[in-house]
């Protein structure tokens, strides 16, 4: 054993200089990219890489949900809110050297909409209805002008052009590589794919012809490390410069390490417990009971003790990442068991009630620490007389059961784009009743009217007013126990500066630098 150890050390020492040059950022992801066909990307880890390669007409201001021009320099929306005319940025080239122009936009979009399009066959997942569904037709006005006509007005349309499915890919590459285009990406982004060694690493190189400011960092290397402990180890040894999803129990050790910096990024994440608002036994149909349950749960305790301060207490579906779209002036439910008991008494349940079944997943994307959190919530509720039994389930089965009339169930939501529609409409509009994501069957006609209405107009101020009112009503109705908005937990070497986390879970490394 001794000699084994010695030889292990000899091998290690002979090679312990991890090449972490200042012109390369090495990122440790949880999994490797699946495909670089932008229309086919459905997971966070792939899009964290692909967002360096592809751009959309509209982009997010780095680190926020605010829209700003990207491949389109400007756009106009017609009076009837059906025609979007985009003026494209001149002189932009795809990585394969061909020009970016109006034809390319048309080709990229029509490929997904038109079943007879020559490049339609290369799609495995076809349609992308929620993103491109509202589009009626796409017209090339001139080389740098494209007009998109919608079937009906769509409030979130502009925000959706930020999404991966609506990023522009080179038509030449699509024609050349056909079904294999996912391995030979050609976008307009600041980095190009240099080498993709499946399972080992994905290397990006800076795009020398990038239309914007050329990044300082020459190469980005993404390596997949599945095990959280191994990711942290790779970070502390300098093997990687940056990683995501640090486990809660490792936060303390990271904070103590001077070579590693922890960055908590605001996100649009929301974590809640859906209550079945149509159910009279247990009496979740009673708004007083639902409000009582919100008072009964110690959300601050959950954030502080379980989540180690990596989240903020929630008072509604939208987080601070939504900026002015978040209504902070709503009814709040601070931890107050006395008030909870009073409300329960007022509702005619002074002695509380039992027979409630609380569904908890064993784990799940964005679910934080579901069992610990569920157990604490169960104990908080029991303290005011509400006795729930916890039923745990594997994540796959849980997702199915969640959408089929649960009594009371945990859920979290990571919105991929910055429009409130994707949260409020999907989770709380009665048009998404079970089987659907509005699992608590919440129905408030005024909320329905506001949320559906905001989908059909594109005036930002009018939409904002509607969403603010909806949030007030939702807070009052308490269809969920509002719990927290989790932060993205990113750890990186202290030398890395100017690195940004985006609320949509992107890791923005384009403008990062190394400083000693």
């Amino acid at each position, binding site marked *: 054993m001794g000699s084994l150890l010695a030889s*292990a050390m000899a091998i290690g020492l002979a090679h312990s200089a991890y090449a972490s040059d200042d012109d390369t950022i090495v990122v440790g992801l949880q999994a490797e990219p*699946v495909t670089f066909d932008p229309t086919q990307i459905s997971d966070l880890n792939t899009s964290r890489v692909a967002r360096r390669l592809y751009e959309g007409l509209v982009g997010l201001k780095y680190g926020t949900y605010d829209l700003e021009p990207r491949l389109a320099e400007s756009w106009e929306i017609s009076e009837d809110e059906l025609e979007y005319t985009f003026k494209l940025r001149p002189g932009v080239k795809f990585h394969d050297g061909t020009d970016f122009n109006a034809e390319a936009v048309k080709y990229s979009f029509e490929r997904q909409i038109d079943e007879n399009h020559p490049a339609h066959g290369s799609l495995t997942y076809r349609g992308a209805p929620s993103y491109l569904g509202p589009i009626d037709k796409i017209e090339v006005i001139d080389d740098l002008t494209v007009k998109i006509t919608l079937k009906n007005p769509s409030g979130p349309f502009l925000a959706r052009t930020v999404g991966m499915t609506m990023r522009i890919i080179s038509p030449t590459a699509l024609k050349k590589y056909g079904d294999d285009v996912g391995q030979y990406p050609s976008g307009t982004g600041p980095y190009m794919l240099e080498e993709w060694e499946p399972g080992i690493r994905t290397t990006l190189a800076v795009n020398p012809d990038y239309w914007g400011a050329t990044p300082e960092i020459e190469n980005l290397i993404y390596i997949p490390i599945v*095990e959280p402990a191994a990711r942290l180890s790779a970070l502390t040894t300098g*093997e990687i410069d940056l990683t995501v999803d640090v486990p809660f129990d490792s936060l303390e050790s990271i904070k103590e390490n001077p070579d590693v910096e922890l960055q908590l990024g605001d996100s649009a994440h929301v974590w809640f417990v859906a209550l079945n608002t149509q159910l009279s036994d247990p009496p979740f149909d009673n708004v007083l009971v639902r409000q009582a349950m919100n008072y009964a749960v110690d959300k601050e305790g959950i954030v502080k003790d379980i989540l180690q301060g990596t989240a903020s207490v929630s008072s509604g579906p939208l987080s601070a990442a939504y900026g002015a779209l978040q209504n902070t002036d709503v009814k709040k439910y601070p931890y107050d068991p006395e008030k909870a008991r009073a409300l329960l008494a007022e509702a005619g349940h002074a002695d509380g009630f039992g027979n409630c079944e609380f569904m908890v997943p064993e784990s799940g994307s964005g679910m934080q620490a579901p069992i610990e959190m569920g157990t604490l919530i169960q104990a908080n509720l029991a303290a005011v007389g509400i006795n729930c039994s916890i039923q745990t389930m594997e994540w796959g089965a849980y997702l199915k059961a969640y959408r089929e009339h649960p009594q009371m169930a945990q859920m979290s939501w990571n919105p991929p784009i910055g429009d409130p529609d994707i949260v409020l409409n999907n989770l709380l509009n009665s048009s998404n009743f079970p089987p659907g994501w509005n699992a608590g069957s919440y129905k408030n006609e005024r909320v329905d009217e506001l949320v559906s209405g905001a989908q059909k107009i594109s005036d930002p101020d009018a939409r904002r007013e509607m969403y603010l009112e909806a949030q007030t009503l939702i807070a009052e109705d308490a269809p969920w126990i509002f719990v927290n908005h989790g932060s993205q937990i990113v750890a990186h070497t202290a030398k890395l500066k100017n690195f940004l986390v985006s609320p949509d879970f992107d890791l923005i490394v384009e403008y990062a630098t190394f400083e000693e």
Partner: protein
Amino acid sequence: MRNYLLKRLAQTIPVLFGISVLVFSMLHLAPGDPADLLLGPDATPEAVAELRSDMGLDRPLVVQYGAWAGRILQGDFGRSVVLNRAVLPEILKRFKNTAILTAGALVFAVIFGIGIGILAAVFHQTAFDSTAMLVALAGLSMPTFFTGIAGILIFAMGMQVLPSSGMYPARGGDFFDLLRHLVMPAITLGAVSAAILARMTRSAMLEVIQQDFIRTARAKGVSERGVVWVHALRNAAITIVTVLGMQIGYLLGGSVITEAVFSWPGLGQMMVRAIQARDYPTVQGGVLLIAMSFVFINLAVDLIYAWIDPRIRYS
């Protein structure tokens, strides 16, 4: 020997046929229509109908099997639904990595397991023997993920002498890099096998050493080294090879967890992701490849057997 080889090769044909039927049936035995499974719960009926005719699901099963097996024989394993790439080159790439990991684990298990087993038998009932068997027992009862994570914490994070994950560093990738990255996963994966081999080798050697022919060898003037490494080991090898054959199977299967702990880009990791994503062509291809390698490993073990034990060869 040649007859034996031909006979054993011929025996693999029905086995391979059976495996192919099972793998083919996987998609068809799963509850629900394969097209539904592939498209997921949000599929439209039109899409299901289209995919059904694409896949030939409207034809009789035997015809479907024939077409599928014909393509497999030509090396066409279909396209991965998730990766949208031909399955065969992808699974071969991953299988190569799994094979490297398994081979590393095997080398570790053979050198340490068999070596310690023999020494424990030679130094029977000494402190070496009892210590070795205690360590082996501990090795047996240690779950792979525990050994793996403990290894990462100690050697990668604490002492910083070995890399924590992957096959190559972020940059570079020569043979030496591969070796460094292989050390921990291979030991983690091979530890249980080494422990089993040590125990089995020891008991096989102890049994052989009691035999009359060992006394004959000593009476001939053969040295103790010759007695142990030639006369006894060759006989104990019959038991050891059986255990080893089973261990290769175990290592191939056990590599799934090790690959996950050390982010080793092998077939196991790929299969887990393919199963989660219902990527049936990849799952079928991977299962077929693993099953075939099992068949050929068994064949190899049987041939080694026959080579070691003439009683099998000549009967």
